[in-house]
């Protein structure tokens, strides 16, 4: 039962803070929001912020502007409904492509020197300016007949290449930076001694820089922002988007177009299916650690110890839905996924499977210290800890 008077008293009390204390610097607060602190640092910061009016205000403001850059934790159980909702847009696009291709390949059309055939609106909409530019360049270089065929052949492929880019547009800088996948969820499990876990204080220099005195501020204002001119709507070319569907980017290269276009329309549809399948099976790096990375490709887990140059199959039949992980050492790796599934790679190279809690919630984050100790966060907010290699889990 809600007591309005108590609620109002509580509201007033919640606004009261204890002034004073040493505030964490902006870097630390930002790292807190991005889950970049060690457990010790996080506890120290929370202990201060919980009672500090100014820091609470800073945190609240940061919360109001830190729009979600990371998508909801996806469920990677590939049910037909999810497949349809995620890739269903390909169906009408592929249909249009096939119909237009059939129409275009009619003898009367083939011999005609009439203006280019009407483009398929759905296809044209999906192609970003960069792709259009490339298509124009190709059209100058290719013979007319090849041009027409290439135009239809390239569109769906480019859509597939571009699709992850559109989805991940908001996190693209992170990906472009080459950081590990799932970076926003990372919580570095620093095991340093507490004495070495300094709560970074705003030293004089940094305070002056981050919060300069008014005189500096005036100087800052007086100095005109020497803004370099932004390029005019220059399309962003990222290798990352293409790398998400690694191995298929080369199919969109100009040299491959005539070959792809030479197959019959029905075969094109089959090719679309193959592309769709390969897009779904695109490698996803689940975890990285000291000198090691683990990725999922289709149902396989692959491991690289040479910074991603070469990958070897480490587990041929991994459960679906794995999407987070932590490699505390080169040999040991913990992976988590939907339905509370946790996979542990032992130092011996063998994998064991465990289920956390009731197996209904997905693992959204996992921090491991070694082959025995790990902490997982579930999609419902609960956190569990194990100290025996995932055999038993304790609710935190």
């Amino acid at each position, binding site marked *: 039962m809600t*007591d309005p*008077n*108590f609620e*109002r*008293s*509580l*509201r*007033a*009390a*919640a606004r*009261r803070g204890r002034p004073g204390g040493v505030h964490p610097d*902006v*870097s630390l*607060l*930002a790292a807190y*929001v*991005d889950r*970049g602190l060690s457990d010790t640092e996080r506890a120290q910061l*929370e202990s201060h*912020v*919980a*009672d500090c009016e100014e820091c*609470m*205000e*800073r945190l*609240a*403001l*940061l*919360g*109001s502007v830190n729009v979600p850059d990371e998508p909801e934790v996806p469920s990677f159980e590939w049910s037909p409904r999810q497949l349809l909702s995620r890739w269903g847009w390909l169906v009408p696009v592929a249909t249009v492509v096939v119909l237009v291709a059939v129409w275009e390949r009619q003898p009367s059309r083939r011999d005609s020197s009439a203006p280019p055939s009407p483009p398929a609106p759905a296809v044209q909409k999906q192609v970003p300016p960069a792709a259009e530019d490339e298509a124009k360049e190709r059209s100058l270089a290719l013979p007319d007949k090849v041009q027409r065929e290439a135009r239809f052949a390239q569109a769906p492929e480019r859509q597939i290449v571009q699709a992850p880019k559109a989805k991940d547009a908001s996190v*693209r*800088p*992170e990906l*472009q*930076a*080459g*950081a590990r996948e799932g*970076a926003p969820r990372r*919580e*570095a499990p*620093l*095991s*340093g001694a507490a004495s*070495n876990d*300094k709560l970074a204080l705003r030293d004089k220099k940094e305070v002056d820089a*981050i919060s300069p005195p008014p005189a500096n501020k005036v*100087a*800052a*204002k007086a*100095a005109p*922002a020497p*803004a*370099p001119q932004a*390029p005019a709507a220059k399309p962003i070319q990222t290798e990352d988007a293409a790398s998400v569907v690694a191995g298929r980017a080369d199919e969109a290269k100009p040299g491959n177009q005539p070959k792809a276009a030479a197959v019959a329309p029905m075969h094109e549809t089959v090719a679309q299916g193959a592309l769709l399948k390969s897009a779904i099976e695109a490698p996803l790096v689940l975890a990285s650690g*000291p000198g090691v990375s683990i990725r999922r490709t289709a149902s396989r887990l692959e491991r690289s110890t040479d*910074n991603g140059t070469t990958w070897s199959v480490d587990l041929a039949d991994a459960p679906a839905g794995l999407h987070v992980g932590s490699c505390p050492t080169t040999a040991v790796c913990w992976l988590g996924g939907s339905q509370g599934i946790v996979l542990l790679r032992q130092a011996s190279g063998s994998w064991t499977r465990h289920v956390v809690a009731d197996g209904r919630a997905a693992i959204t*984050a996992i921090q491991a210290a070694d082959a025995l100790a790990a902490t997982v*966060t579930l999609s*419902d*907010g609960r956190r569990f800890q194990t100290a025996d290699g995932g055999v038993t889990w304790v609710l935190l």
Partner: protein
Amino acid sequence: MIAEDVRIEAAALARLHETSRARQWDVSADALGAALRVSVAHRFAAPPGQQDLETYLASLHVGDLALATACRDGHDGAWEHFIRELRPALYAAARTVAGDDGREIADSLYAELFGLAAPDGTRRSLLAYYHGRSRLLTWLRSVLVQRTIDRRRQTSRPVPLDAADDAPARTLGPRTDAAPDPDRDRLVSCAQAALDAAIGALDPRDRIRLRLYYGQDLTLARIGRLLGESEATVSRRLERARRQLRAETTDHLKREHGLTDAAVQQSFEYAAESPELQLDRLLSGTDDG
């Protein structure tokens, strides 16, 4: 610890240099290494062990650190990228936190990010204080928030007490018609002290949730985003904390002050109406924690 004390193995540095794609901004391994050493020195009070160092380095947003390093060094391509990808978000955040003043704050901040010319002709960019522990955008927002709060404090003028005296008395519900309760101040003081003590006894994370929700009026979704919890979890834990506070406060008032149920209820009512007493307690330096 100073940056010069930090030792990063050449192989690890080469790997980070590769994964950060620093080359696209013409950031050399040495330059990235220097930024990493500063970051490590900022994080650790004493030289960390090898494992701690590796874990820390692996946790850094090295791509953003490389970008910041390149911007700091005046790389045109890096600045183009910054302007295209980060500055719009910075302006949007400034509008959110500072309204009409946001653009001015963001422009001022942007100038400092680009670097203010020192008397000796060198440029000192604010980006030198980015250590890669968060995404660059989050760090920028954090700096922006700090600047906004600093600005508010500089521009807010204290309200003279005379003006407050001239203001019409607030109407406080039904009790304005009743005779003043001689015990009112005591009940308010007891309720607030009990409530503060109960809040102080909560787990820090519970306190943060509580203060963000009740004190800062943040939505459950935003609190969840800040704390890495789902909206339902935030709601559930808030409700649990609220029940706990209610029970402990009531128990404290009965046990320590001998209040009856009716008096407890009355004390909450008075406390809800009497924010002015908080100022009294603040001025007297009372610490109820």
